[in-house]
């Protein structure tokens, strides 16, 4: 699992993020803050600006579009359930202006040409409503009818063309379109979807729609210029709405939150689907994506601390690079293990942690002299209750042997046997404050060292024998090497022992 790191862009946000790019190497992000005002953070090609407050009191996620370089229009629902609008004209912010209406959904905005904006939202009667900017004035709201049960999603594959999608009362995806002179539809495109629709056009007369199905898998339906294809299942188990973006003809990148809270990615390369691949993180929002040039992607999400996080594809790799956080482990040998060598155990830990983006450094290896009267009884260590924060007297005594180890280094003591009040253990990870340590028995499995150090870093047991932290015995790992999932990696990264 490489590239699991995300860049924190700070802030405390309370909605999904809307990202827009009005030129190469330019990104503008919008989200609501804790004071319900709209906030803005931007990338100018060399550094991040903001967060700046754009004021207002908004009651939906903002949506931003750009119809020309150095032009941004941002929309959100206000306290009065009307649509409110702010715009950047290249030198200053205009608005807030009220665009009226009473809406009951998030807003979808699309620009099919310069100085043109079309807005869609659900009304009080659950019909879809439309409002547009024609370059000199706002038109609408016009009712486009229907009874929709999701946010509308609008896309445009050419000048004076709009396609809008929403879920109907039957759970199917429904479609209306503007052909330049009249509205077509509603037409049912079938399926039973359980999320909002996300749609993208990678070329003229081409539309790709994605949604979560009843089985929580990602489903895909597409318009090829003459007919609808699909629904095709792209598998996975996703939470919330998927996100799609295209950085070029016949290219699609789809993102969704997985059951582990991480961002997952599938892509269409023109001939086949790649993925799923995990991009890590533990997110608490939908995924916002923008592409400011070919083979470039920028993703923005809210993290568990409600800050905004960023990950990018630069054409060859995901950034930011692997975490620079490392874990330093010292080995103190009282008895050599009998089933695997210390090196095998350490290398397994280094492999598993390294794949999670946490390099493990071997701080030192020292053989403790079990002939010494004070050390000898600790070779068969009694860990008492072996519960976190409650080390036994013997563990306290053993922890005095921390040669070479800093306070934020983990010391693993290789003992002949490990016991607790109820019987024999392969290892134990309770330790005195300020002396992080684990004990590992000579008869432990090849993964026990990594498992116990996982406990030291704050991980708990899980019921999955494909994962390092299984409570079902690391001798019973079913698909080696065992996995660490994104939320576990987040916990490990948050430990003051990974620095």
């Amino acid at each position, binding site marked *: 699992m490489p590239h699991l790191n995300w860049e924190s862009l700070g802030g405390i946000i309370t909605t999904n993020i809307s990202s827009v790019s009005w030129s190469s190497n330019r990104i503008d992000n919008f989200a609501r803050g804790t004071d319900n005002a709209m906030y803005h953070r931007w990338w100018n090609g060399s550094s991040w600006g903001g967060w700046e407050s754009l004021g207002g009191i908004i009651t939906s996620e903002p949506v931003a579009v750009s119809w020309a370089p150095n032009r941004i229009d941002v929309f959100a629902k206000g306290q009065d359930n009307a649509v409110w609008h702010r715009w950047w004209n290249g030198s200053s912010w205009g608005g807030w202006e009220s665009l009226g209406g009473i809406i009951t959904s998030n807003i979808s905005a699309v620009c099919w040409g310069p100085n043109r904006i079309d807005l869609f939202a659900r009304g009080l009667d659950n019909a879809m409503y439309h409002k547009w900017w024609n370059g000199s004035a706002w038109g609408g709201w016009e009712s486009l009818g229907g009874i929709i049960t999701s946010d509308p999603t609008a896309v445009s594959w050419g000048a004076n063309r709009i396609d809008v999608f929403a879920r109907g009362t039957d759970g199917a995806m429904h479609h209306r379109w503007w052909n330049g002179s009249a509205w077509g539809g509603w037409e049912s495109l079938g399926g039973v979807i359980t999320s909002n629709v996300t749609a993208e056009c990678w070329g003229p007369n081409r539309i790709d729609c994605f949604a979560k199905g009843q089985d929580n898998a990602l489903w895909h339906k597409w318009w090829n210029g003459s007919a609808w294809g699909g629904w095709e299942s792209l598998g996975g188990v996703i939470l919330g709405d998927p996100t799609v973006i295209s950085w070029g003809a016949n290219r699609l990148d789809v993102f969704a939150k997985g059951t582990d809270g991480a961002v997952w990615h599938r892509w269409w390369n023109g001939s086949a689907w790649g993925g799923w691949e995990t991009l890590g993180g533990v997110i608490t929002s939908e995924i916002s994506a923008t592409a400011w040039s070919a083979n470039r992607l920028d993703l923005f999400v809210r993290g568990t601390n409600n800050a905004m996080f960023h990950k990018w594809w630069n054409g060859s790799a995901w950034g930011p690079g692997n975490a620079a956080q490392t874990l330093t482990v010292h080995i103190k040998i009282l008895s050599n293990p009998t089933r695997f060598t210390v090196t095998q155990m350490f290398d397994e830990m280094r492999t598993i942690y390294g794949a999670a983006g946490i390099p493990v450094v071997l701080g030192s290896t020292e053989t403790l002299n079990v002939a010494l009267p004070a050390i000898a*009884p600790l070779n068969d260590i009694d860990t008492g209750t072996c519960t976190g924060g409650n080390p036994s007297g013997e563990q306290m005594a053993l922890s005095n042997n921390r040669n070479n180890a800093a306070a934020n280094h983990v010391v693993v003591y290789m003992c*002949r046997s490990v016991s607790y009040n109820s019987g*024999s253990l392969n290892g134990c990870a309770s330790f005195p404050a300020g002396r992080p340590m684990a004990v590992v028995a*000579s*008869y432990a499995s090849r993964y026990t060292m990594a498992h116990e150090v996982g406990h030291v870093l704050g991980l708990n047991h899980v019921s999955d024998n494909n994962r390092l932290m299984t409570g079902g015995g690391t001798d019973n790992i079913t698909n080696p090497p065992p996995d660490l999932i994104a939320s576990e990696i987040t916990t490990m990264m948050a430990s003051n022992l990974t620095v």
Partner: protein
Amino acid sequence: MPFSKEELIKMINLDEPDYQAIVSKLSADDIPILVELTKHENPAIATKAISVLGQMKSDKALQGLNDAVNHPDPVRRIAAAHSLRNLATLPGSTKMLEKLLDDTDIGVRKFALKTVEVAKVTSLREKVKAMNLKEVNPEIKALGENVFKKL
């Protein structure tokens, strides 16, 4: 119906077994295979089987520890010394403990002493006193003196 050997191995061969949870799923019919597992070539399995037998708290389980008490591998004798704390009220356990208190291995002696302390085996008070007189390791000697005082 007893568990198969494979099922029992999977059940007990954990990094940090919750022995009470394991034993709650077992019956006396499982003891013969558990006894067999105390002789398993993998000490991770053998020591867990020894610990489980202790929690079974029956004469058959106690008898099943006999081989472990006399096993050449001190790791298994340590597990047996520890396991006896749950069987100390059964006839025959004292004799096993007495033997383990005389063990040449310091770890075995330590856990035998702890079992005498935890299970309050007062019949071994004089044995502990005698052991302390010849104990060479000061840590174990101090432990023995403390145990003696408590008995």
